């Protein structure tokens, strides 16, 4: 029993991290169709912001979440305004341009902060662990899980219940018709991109105490995030949540029976097969052409 619960908790912890990282990507890709390969670097920038705020300004991780979101929101805003907005009609080229942005971000961080590993401390109030049904789990990991679900709920609320979300969905369905009804699609795109970057920054900050922070950390995240988004279905927020839960539990389970590397390889292979037979994702019935 303990073993099963702790296995489920491990999987949920992996899933919550996956969802945090994939959420920003899902928003950007689902709405604008931009394949943002710099997403991992935005996550990395969020983690470095957390490190700088903690070591230079003495801010606790929880306090610094707000400025980190704001900083990365502005970063996303600028990137969209300078580069991305020229590429909406060339989706494959967005892969190339955002990769270039990622390379620059990575190198800039390496120059400014050094290439060595950095460590961010957990908030002291959350550094203990909690026992659930006989299995112990770090309370910080549970906190990350709660935040992930909270951010998801917030995004869902914005998407479904606000006028911004309504315009967003209208553009996603048909940009030109929405524009002719007076929706400023350029502005909505920019806000979406900035919001996605902000969420990615939060993900980086939240993950930073669990993993070491380095300029290269984004590379593996971006691949994982893509797998989650593609598996869940591009325009389905619930799909993103469900697929991160599935992938998280599956990685945990496979890693229990073999090792992490083989688990990762098997999960990737499974995703490849799924894309082949259900390119629209597991949880989408209809997609925009």
């Amino acid at each position, binding site marked *: 029993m303990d073993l099963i619960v702790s296995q489920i908790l491990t999987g949920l912890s992996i899933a919550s991290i996956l969802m945090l990282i994939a959420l920003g990507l899902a928003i950007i890709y689902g709405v604008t169709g931009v394949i943002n390969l710099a997403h991992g670097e935005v996550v990395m920038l969020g983690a470095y912001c957390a490190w700088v705020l903690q070591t230079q300004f003495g801010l606790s991780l929880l306090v610094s979440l707000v400025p980190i979101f704001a900083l990365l929101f502005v970063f996303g805003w600028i990137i969209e305004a300078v*580069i991305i907005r020229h590429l909406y009609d060339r989706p494959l080229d967005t892969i190339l341009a955002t990769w270039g942005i990622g390379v620059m971000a990575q190198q800039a961080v390496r120059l400014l902060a050094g290439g060595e590993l950095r460590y961010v401390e957990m908030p002291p109030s959350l550094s203990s662990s909690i026992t659930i049904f006989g299995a112990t789990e770090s309370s910080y990991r549970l906190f990350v899980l709660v935040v992930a679900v909270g951010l998801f709920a917030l995004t869902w609320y914005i998407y479904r219940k606000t006028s911004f979300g309504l315009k967003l969905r209208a553009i996603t369905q048909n940009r030109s018709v929405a524009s002719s009804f007076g929706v400023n699609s350029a502005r909505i795109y920019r806000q979406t991109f900035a919001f996605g970057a902000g969420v990615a920054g939060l993900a980086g900050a939240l993950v930073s105490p669990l993993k070491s922070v380095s300029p290269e950390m984004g590379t593996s995240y971006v691949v994982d995030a893509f797998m989650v988004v593609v598996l869940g279905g591009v325009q389905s927020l619930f799909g993103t949540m469900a697929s991160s839960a599935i992938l998280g539990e599956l990685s945990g389970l496979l890693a229990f029976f073999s090792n992490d590397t083989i688990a990762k390889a098997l999960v*990737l292979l499974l995703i*490849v097969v799924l894309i082949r037979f259900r390119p629209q994702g597991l949880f989408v019935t209809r997609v925009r052409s």
Partner: protein
Amino acid sequence: MHGKTTTQLALYGAFCLAILLAPLVVDNAFLLNKYARYLVLAIVAISLSLSWGYAGILNLGQAATFGIGSYCMAMALKLKTIPVHTGPDGLPDFMVWNNVTELPWIWQPFHSLPFAVFAGIALPSLFAGLIGWFIFGGRITGVYAAIITLAVMVVLNLVIVDQQAYTGGFNGITDLAQFEVGEVAFDAYSASTYYLVAICLALTLFLALVITKSKVGLVLQAIRDQEERVRFFGYDVARYKTFVFMVSAGIAGIAGMLYTIVMEFASPTFLSVPLSLSIVIWVAVGGRQSLLGAAIGALIVTGIQGALSESEAFLDTWTLIMGGLFVIVVLVMPKGLAGAGEILARRIFSSQRSSSDRAEVGSAVERLS
């Protein structure tokens, strides 16, 4: 059209002549090795241009087939090393360290160098054939195809790093013998290796050119532009795409084998995400719809990269500069240097051309802005 082909042939010929004559000017062994390395990367760029530029398949995992070729050659050269390097019974040193007692069956045939060369072309092609059949048979295109190729490469990389006892793991396969054909030994730091690479580059360039000019090549370009329409004409689109995917992989395999000869080792970084994306960059900078452009793109980018990373002042900033340059190229020159060159040439000669040609120039320029 005829005039255009002649100009193209002249340009391709001049390029091949230039790279073949380079050793007459350069007689520094270190430089020759460096240039040979750039030329190998130009071959990979040609292979990607063939599938991406001419058939519209963006392969983000091109380094996978490059890596397979590289490992085939490294396995054969490892087995040729003198016993000092290979432990008892001719067992490679890293196997001894990993307590492997006898040569795994998968290594056995690599005692034969001709087999290794054959495998270095056949295995990547077979690998690509399987993936192609899997992807294109299901009519998966665009972004999804790109992501599948990327994921498959990551899997291959993970497996190679994980199976340390059979692949050398993270360190790869090092301490190799020299590649020898008959009496000729190809020292990595010699003109002979440079010529080997340069001749292979010239041959692949013209092979690829022949393919693009053939009927198959025309069908592929039609698929790139209007896949559905070609399918309605009754062509088996999946078969054509798989074919070009396999040829591209075979060429990448050749490049991989040459890379092992030039670098004197094989490593999991040869089939990593950064290298694979770099290949895409070279082709995009050079011009994906021009084989020669892709090759030159690879030479220019890797050349600048090499030069900047050697100079003290740019050691840390070159990546930053490359990233910036690349973003600019994508934004303002979607067809790369080759596309820009073509437009420039047409502008200069536009007075001699018909008005229909001018319309084409107009649309190309429009795409630039």
